[in-house]
């Protein structure tokens, strides 16, 4: 008995962690399981196992249109915000300049503002200017809220770059552009990749701001929200699960690649 209680108190925190992880994964598991549900109109009650939904994920009306829009907005917004954010990150991570603190504040504020305020204010501006909300306005909004996250991610990487590596490059006959291209950029690239991945996930998963700024353009989260009332179709579960595995794969692959690079004797 004493052995058991001793083991318990020693491993209490590990047991807790296990329980916490289980809690984290419950809805994921539920979503995954119900993607196999042989549902008709609603996906609320388990009716039987089937692979049909996986074979035909676009079966529900408009779901793939919504998904497509999410990808278009996601890739475009990621591309633009990654470029803009990386430029800012280099400026902040490298140089002293007047207006540093104002810049830091401007980058910080969107992250500290609730999404509803971001969405509402953009919509208000568009209304004032007589601009109709559409995919373009949605992309504009997505770029806006992604920039800050890109800056934070890339800046950390830029700031930890040893300036002596660039000095060594110049000492070895590389001019400024060659130094940037052959030494700086490759070393900062993992940070930029991580930032792009983060930006895409934020964009893809966004609902509130998209709801305010996308007009009639359907995105995957909007599709899910609208069909929530009558039970979302199992195809949505399929797509959600597929995105989960894809993201997991990318992250794990990234980890393996970067740990291979660090092999020590």
């Amino acid at each position, binding site marked *: 008995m004493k052995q058991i209680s001793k083991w318990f108190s020693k491993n209490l925190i590990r047991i807790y962690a296990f329980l916490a992880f289980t809690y984290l994964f419950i809805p994921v598991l539920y979503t995954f399981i119900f993607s196999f549900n042989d549902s008709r109109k609603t996906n609320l009650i388990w009716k039987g196992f089937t692979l049909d939904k996986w074979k035909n994920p676009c079966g529900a009306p408009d779901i793939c249109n919504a998904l497509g829009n999410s990808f278009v907005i996601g890739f475009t917004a990621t591309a633009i915000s990654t470029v803009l954010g990386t430029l800012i990150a280099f400026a902040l991570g490298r140089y002293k300049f007047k207006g540093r603190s104002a810049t830091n504040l401007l980058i910080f504020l969107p992250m500290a503002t609730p999404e509803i305020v971001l969405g509402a204010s953009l919509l208000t501006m568009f209304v004032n200017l007589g601009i109709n909300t559409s995919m373009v306005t949605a992309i504009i909004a997505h770029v806006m809220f992604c920039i800050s996250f890109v800056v934070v991610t890339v800046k950390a990487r830029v700031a930890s770059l*040893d300036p*002596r*590596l660039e*000095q*060594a*490059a*110049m*000492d*070895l*006959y*590389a*001019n400024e552009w*060659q130094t940037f291209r*052959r*030494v700086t950029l*490759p*070393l900062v690239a993992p940070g930029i990749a991580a930032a792009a991945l983060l930006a895409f996930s934020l964009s893809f998963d966004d609902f509130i701001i998209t709801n305010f700024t996308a007009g009639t353009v359907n995105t995957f989260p909007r599709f899910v929200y609208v069909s929530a009332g009558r039970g979302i179709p199992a195809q949505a579960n399929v797509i959600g699960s597929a995105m989960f595995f894809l993201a997991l794969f990318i992250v794990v692959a990234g980890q393996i690649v970067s740990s291979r*690079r*660090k*092999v*020590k*004797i």
Partner: protein
Amino acid sequence: MAVDASTSARGDLILKNLTKSYGEFNAVDDLSLVIPKGSFFALLGPSGCGKTTTLRMVAGLEEPTSGSIFVGETEITDMKPYRRPVNTVFQNYALFPHLTIYENIAFGLRRRGISEAEVKTAVDKVLNLIELPQLASRKPNQLSGGQQQRIAVARAIVNRPALLLLDEPLGALDLKLRRQMQIELKWIQTEIGITFVHVTHDQEEAMTMADTIAVMNKGKIEQMGTPEELYDSPKTSFVANFLGQSNLIPGEVSGNDGDNLIVDLFGTKVAVPKARSSALGKSVLVGIRPEKFRIAAEGKSTHGNVLTGGVVSDVSYIGVSTQYQVEMPSGKELMVFEQNDDDEEMLRKGAKVVLSWEPTFTFALDGSENVSAGSH
């Protein structure tokens, strides 16, 4: 990209009135220096003396406040680092972590537009020189400290620069490896004949490796010369105390005798060779290195310069030698290193002793010098 003409400049390294100031503070103060082509030159000094700043100005990584730098006839003062015929071995090696060893070494050659075939020949040759050909496809973080150090040197010398600058390259290595690398670097330099400018705070390292040493202090050069010149005939107390150790005893010149000055040290007269004196007036500091003293119990016979009345105040046995602290009647404490090379019994604390030494081993500094400058 074609090879820049300026990267093929050759000749002595000439620094003229080089200054680097940060506001009121002069890190490098009106430095003028000529380093002959093909020599192994050391810039020696404590941290903060300006030696690294000087090096970086030569490399082009710092901008001088005033003054000029020449390689032979070519002025390089305002040139960007990638235009200079100069390569640097950095303190932390600065090997490119994302490139293989081969690519690291090939980096400078490729930037200068050299053909891949020639690049391969040069890289292979230098890898063989440092005896690490098997590491070509590894990455820097897979190498040990000593290997990284040698690759850093290889990456620089493969470009055949006019000058190789080394910024305390051996600092991160353990003692045994450091000694080994000192010998290797010296050998490489004699093999390929490039001018080496080696910055270090380790005086033993400088003396082992360099043909010429410049001792720097507070942005200026205290003295420049061969290791022997600096050690046997220091001109300032800083040099006397920084290189090895010195006993500096204040005295008054009371006359001369042929090639020697006669100096009065607390009542005793000693002879100092004029050739080793940089004194300007009557007031002098007489310098004797601790290993030049002979120490013996009071009453034993002596020759040369003699100081009596000393009492042993501390004894340290170090195997190879014994170190004595001897307190003189004037209150001055002198250091004596005695080789344990005979059967003489070790003297004990409190023993009354007589010190003697050959007059040729004496040097003299001007009395205005600070007795403790440069001591460590």
